[in-house]
């Protein structure tokens, strides 16, 4: 009986592990480890490795930015917002990341 239970358990564990393949697909990949690692090796490691924390991001519509901060946009971004969709867009060489998590920020 005990042996039977062990076999059943092993089968269930096996199925359970396979099931894990479906899991965790949408959880947040933290950029923190990447960020701190990149910072540790310095900006010279990669041409575009300068890391910058973002405070907010506002979508740029073809008719202008959406949101309260639109009035604060620089001229080049206003121009970019008004370009027809499909025109090549400017992109910064800086690497933007979310800010550190609260527990990391308070250290």
């Amino acid at each position, binding site marked *: 009986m*005990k042996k039977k239970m062990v076999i059943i358990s092993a089968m269930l564990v096996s199925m359970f592990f396979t099931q894990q393949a479906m899991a965790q697909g*949408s959880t947040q*990949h933290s950029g923190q*480890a990447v*960020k701190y690692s990149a910072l540790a090796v310095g900006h010279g490691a990669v041409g575009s490795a300068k890391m910058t924390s973002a405070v907010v991001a506002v979508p740029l519509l073809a008719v202008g930015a959406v949101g309260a901060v639109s009035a604060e946009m620089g001229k080049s971004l206003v121009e970019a917002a008004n370009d027809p969709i499909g025109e090549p867009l400017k992109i910064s*060489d800086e690497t933007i990341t979310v800010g550190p*998590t609260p527990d990391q920020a308070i250290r």
Partner: protein
Amino acid sequence: MKTKAMNICIGIMMLLGMGMAAEAGSTANAEPQFEAKEIVSFAKKVEKVLASKGARVFVLSRVGRPVDELPKGIQYTHTALGVYSMIKTADGREIPGYAIYNLYQREKEPNISDLVMDYPVDFFGGVYELKAGIVIPTPELQARLLKVIASNTYRNLHNPVYSVIANPYNSKFQNCTEYTLDVINAAIYQTDDVKKIKGNTKAYFEAQKVNISPLRLMVGSIFMPDVKTSDQKGGAKTATFTTIAKYLDKYDLIQEQMVIVQ
């Protein structure tokens, strides 16, 4: 004796299962699978390719699990929308770049999701392959998507009750791909009416059959809070990046689709 043995077995399963989940590679504190410089370089490459094509909004996917562990028919594990944005930095500057609009499972409550904005390097931080599946919608659909993303509809379409194999034809549970599809259909039909969105999804969208045996799904639904089957009928189906791409392609709503690899 039988009960005691069963309890031990379940205990072992749960312990092992928890350990496995913690190692699943997509948690907030997971070790990246690649060198930081590789992830940074790849994320910037993705941004630059999309900017060169003038993409304001695109559908983006990643591989967050080892490929050999993915069920048949599933090529990517997470899908989100990328949006060309004005990014205000912590030091007060404004720079152009892409923000990624995600539905993420909570790390400690995987059956609950949140809407989270991050950036390409965050998005690819824990991937198992430096590979991005991308669909750039037509300019008209991009413009409509921007309007939805900037409106309350974007948040109102979120159902925080998460199932990794959520059925996209109803609103009982939601996962990242179903949410992305809901936002896309809200844009296509210019509506915030979930019944209308689901009605059109049933009529025109073909979901991916989940190629996992019913027994495994049953065991998963017992032991994993983010695996639910009560929204499924006649074989589990879910939305995937690939089925969203096929759907948009079928109705001529794609400007360009591509796979970017390092």
